[in-house]
């Protein structure tokens, strides 16, 4: 049997026999679910932490919010995400048997720390005249933040948020450590059944690559749309 014959035999063995391709399909589904929900959680947490810092900087009465945000960001960014994940699953939430919600929580909390810094920088990049203009029209601090500052800040941080999205997608590949059947674990499972490493690992890597390329192009479309108001 030649090289291609051998490859074909392995392909059938890895993916077709006993519907083993389902390992990748199930894994892909879980990877997508975990990435999307932890991104939403991360953006929500990140926005709240960023506002903690902005409000505290503006009014020293709320200094405690600044401290909370700093501790959160320091601890989360200072420890490996795999360990955080295992601590959530095996220690804090040891009584939860379903790993996917725990993975969403773990990755979301992790991502929140990075998103917080992205948002904080984005909000601070908006000229302070914007806040003054909103306030001078009788709008409240929060209305001005919500309708004047945040839409502009969001547009500025979109490329950085996109990078975070992509990083998060790839980071979820360690979810197997808490027995999540994600895309990487799916490939690993096939390898355990067929003793072939090459095709399953390359296949899952290719799927990650394709997803990243899709996200990148969607982001650049979105960015171009949002830039429309900036034409000069």
């Amino acid at each position: 049997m030649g090289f291609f014959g051998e490859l074909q035999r392995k392909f059938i063995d890895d993916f077709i026999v006993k519907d083993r391709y389902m390992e990748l399909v199930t894994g892909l589904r879980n990877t997508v679910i975990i990435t999307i929900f932890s991104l939403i959680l991360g953006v929500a947490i990140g926005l709240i932490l960023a506002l903690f810092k902005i409000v505290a900087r503006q009014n020293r009465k709320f200094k405690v919010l600044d401290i909370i945000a700093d501790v959160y960001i320091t601890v989360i960014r200072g420890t490996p995400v795999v360990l955080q994940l295992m601590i959530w699953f095996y220690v804090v939430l040891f009584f939860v048997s379903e790993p996917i919600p725990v993975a969403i929580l773990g990755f979301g909390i992790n991502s929140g720390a990075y998103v917080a810094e992205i948002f904080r920088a984005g909000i601070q990049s908006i000229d302070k005249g914007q806040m003054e203009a909103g306030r001078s029209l009788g709008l409240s601090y929060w209305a001005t933040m919500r309708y004047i500052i945040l839409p502009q800040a969001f547009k500025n941080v979109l490329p950085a948020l996109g990078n975070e999205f992509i990083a998060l997608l790839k980071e979820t590949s360690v979810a197997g450590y808490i027995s999540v059947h994600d895309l990487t674990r799916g490939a690993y499972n096939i390898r355990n059944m067929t003793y072939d490493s090459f095709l399953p690992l390359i296949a899952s890597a290719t799927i990650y690559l394709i997803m990243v390329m899709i996200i990148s192009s969607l982001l650049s479309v979105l960015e171009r749309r949002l830039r429309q108001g900036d034409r000069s």
Partner: protein
Amino acid sequence: MIEVKKLVKDFGGHRVLDGIDQSVEKGEKIVVIGPSGSGKSTFLRCLNLLETPTSGEILFEGENITDPKVDINRVRRKMGMVFQHFNLFPHMSVMDNIIFAPTHLKLMSKDEAQAKAEALLKRVGLQDKAKAYPNQLSGGQKQRIAIVRALAMSPDLMLFDEPTSALDPEMVGEVLEVMKELAQEGMTMIVVTHEMGFAKEVGTRVLFMDEGKIVEDAPPEELFGNPRTERAKEFLSKVL
């Protein structure tokens, strides 16, 4: 309309406003002049509490607005402000810039606000710019839109913080023209500016500020024609 009593503002140990007493009646057009760093912008920004006074009182239409219990957002609806750098909202069209605050605060329905915005835009000669975005406009156009945005709230008082200082020279005229028309219609105005021609022509009273104090307070003919203090004479000799 607005009464300022013993207004003091410190910035990190430095006294920027040093006990201002002043009162402005309805219909007056006050022009504030003085060297840079004299506190004239800070004075203006204290009037609508964009800067929080260190001490002193500001009474607007009889209400002490420095009282922390006063809802400053409600008070600010009646005080329009125009900034040196326009501060239009770049992510909104000209129309949305104008109608956002009145509709969001439920002072007008969207239709009413749009009709009012169109009328105001027509008055400043920019009726064709409603759909444009701020970055598509010249500086003079931006500032005229900023004036319209403030007027859309139907304020009782308009504050102008060096409205022509960031403009190219050829655009200064179109903005001053709008301000003159506004003055002729009877709007109460407080204008911080370096445009001495405008001060002479439009001002009913000119305040000369130096080192955080109002040093002279007189009608323009008097202040420009016959300044009493050395400091004002020196300043006027440089700018006139």
